[in-house]
């Protein structure tokens, strides 16, 4: 089976003034379709940089990244945008909902960007709202929603294009314990349905739920355990 993600020898260097900071150095990582991976590590360990590179938001300085067996390090910005649109869903710690748009409109954004017809868009958004228990909140703007509801809207938006990979950056970081657990359950349900899930967190309890844990330190992979 072709791995979904194949990183080999990834380097990412930032220039901070005169000093060069190795955010990632010589990193290899292979993720199979359907895996549930937690990327752990203290802040500054390079886990966010790893997530940005996995999500095609950032380019490595060296190394090769194959996504579905295809080398994506050499793609143009627009081609990478297309891959993100069709294959990858993002869930952020601070939700990143557009405050002027309603829940339904926020969920519809990727469909609009992909040029999906309004009729089909409406049907798919309505279905997603139903699946995530947001039907009664469809016309509410983000500031009228609770934290858990906002993150559910964000997850609905991340999954509306039926991506193969979901990247979640501290998805429970801004939520209380109960709603955090609810959101994690939601993400795990998606994973159970075959979507590859990569969660970046420094929450040990959350990391412990994943079948595979990758621990980062100083831009290197410290441990890679599969339960």
């Amino acid at each position, binding site marked *: 089976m072709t791995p979904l993600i194949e990183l080999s020898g990834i380097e990412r260097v930032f220039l901070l003034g005169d000093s060069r900071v190795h955010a990632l150095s010589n990193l290899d990582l292979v993720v199979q379709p359907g895996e549930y991976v937690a990327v752990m590590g203290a802040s500054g360990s390079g886990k966010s940089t790893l997530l940005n590179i996995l*999500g095609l*938001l950032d380019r490595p300085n060296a190394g090769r990244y194959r996504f579905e067996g295809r080398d994506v390090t050499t793609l143009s910005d627009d081609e990478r*945008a297309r891959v*993100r*649109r*069709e294959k990858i869903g993002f869930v952020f710690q*601070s939700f*990143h909902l557009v405050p002027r748009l309603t829940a339904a409109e926020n969920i519809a954004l990727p469909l609009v*960007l992909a040029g999906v017809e309004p009729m089909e868009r409406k049907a798919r958004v309505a279905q997603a709202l139903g699946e995530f228990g947001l039907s009664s909140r469809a016309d509410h703007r983000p500031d009228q929603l609770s934290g858990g509801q906002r993150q559910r809207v964000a997850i609905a938006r991340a999954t509306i294009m039926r991506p193969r990979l979901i990247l979640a950056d501290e998805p429970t970081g801004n939520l209380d314990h109960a709603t955090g657990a609810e959101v994690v359950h939601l993400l795990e349900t998606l994973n159970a349905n075959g979507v590859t899930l990569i969660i970046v967190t420094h929450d040990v309890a959350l990391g412990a739920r994943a079948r595979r844990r990758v621990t980062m330190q100083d831009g290197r992979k410290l441990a890679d355990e599969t339960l």
Partner: protein
Amino acid sequence: MVLAMAIGVAAVVVLTSLGDGARRYVVNEFAALGSNLVIVLPGRSQTGGFNPVNAITNTPRDLTVEDAQALLRAPAVQRVAPIAIGTSEAVWNGKLRDVTLVGTSAAYLKLRRMELAQGRFLPAEEPHAAAAVIGAKIQSELFGATPAIGQTLRIGDRRVRVIGVLAPSGQGLGMNADEIVIVPVALAQAMFNSNTLFRILIEAQDRALLEQAKTQVSAILKARHDGEEDVTVITQDAVLATFDRILTTLTYGVAGIAAISLAVAGILVMNVMLVAVTQRTSEIGLLKALGAEGATIRNVFLAEAALLSMAGAVAGWLLGESGAFLLRRFLPMLPAFPPDWAVVAALATALATGLIFGVIPARRAARLDPVEALMRH
């Protein structure tokens, strides 16, 4: 910013309608005089270097009624009306009023495109008749409800019979046609005790023959005045064209000045859009993460700039039109309608500046790095 755009467009619309209104006002005034008109003034208005003849006979010869009659021989001339003008007093039934006395001939009515309300105009066949045609205001002020036709009016020391009343016509280049009394030119000259004319008005056969008429008139008068060119012949067309040109240039100039305010509005568009890009950096990052291409984001911001300037332009247009409406309301004689070219140009300039100044912010948004954009929250 929308307001700045609106004010810019409104300024263009109002100022051009003012300029164009002034132009039309002047053109209309001249047209009221009759359009195929050639005017002869006594004396030479231009200096053509030192002329020894001028040094000896300094005073130019006067224009006379005979001069006017002689002009009828010119083939390109259709009508000729001599004019002698002065002020006098009109008295009827103990009521006295200052009037402008115009001595002329039967051709004057048609030549000046005037209309009679009652009676008839001066008879062509009786150039010495003691008859008068009075203006509408004279009629109402002197005679009131009494029928004026047939009444005997005393003007100066003469008695004349009122044979006609002019239809009210309003202003005509400084001379109010409602306050004049028209008498045969011979009578007027007798009253003023002079045989000179103030002007000779000539109507050419046709607009195309205007220049010919002018040349012929000059030639005839030169022959009659012992070979000396001591009159000035102007065509109304020339005067009209000059005014038209001056006022059109003025309108363009004013429009240009107003257009500068549109450029200023364009810079405001750019600043507003730059602020918008900064404020929405994280949203732009989000759109990029969701898979928006650079072109999509650029177009979104361009569309916003276009919509903002369009809103401003339309608001300004309505504002300008209502401004022009108010102008027409308070200055009824000024036909202050904004010319179509000005409206189109103002709207197009507004939209174009909005788009041009929107390009820089839009490109900046499109080029934002998604990672950095997302982090700024």
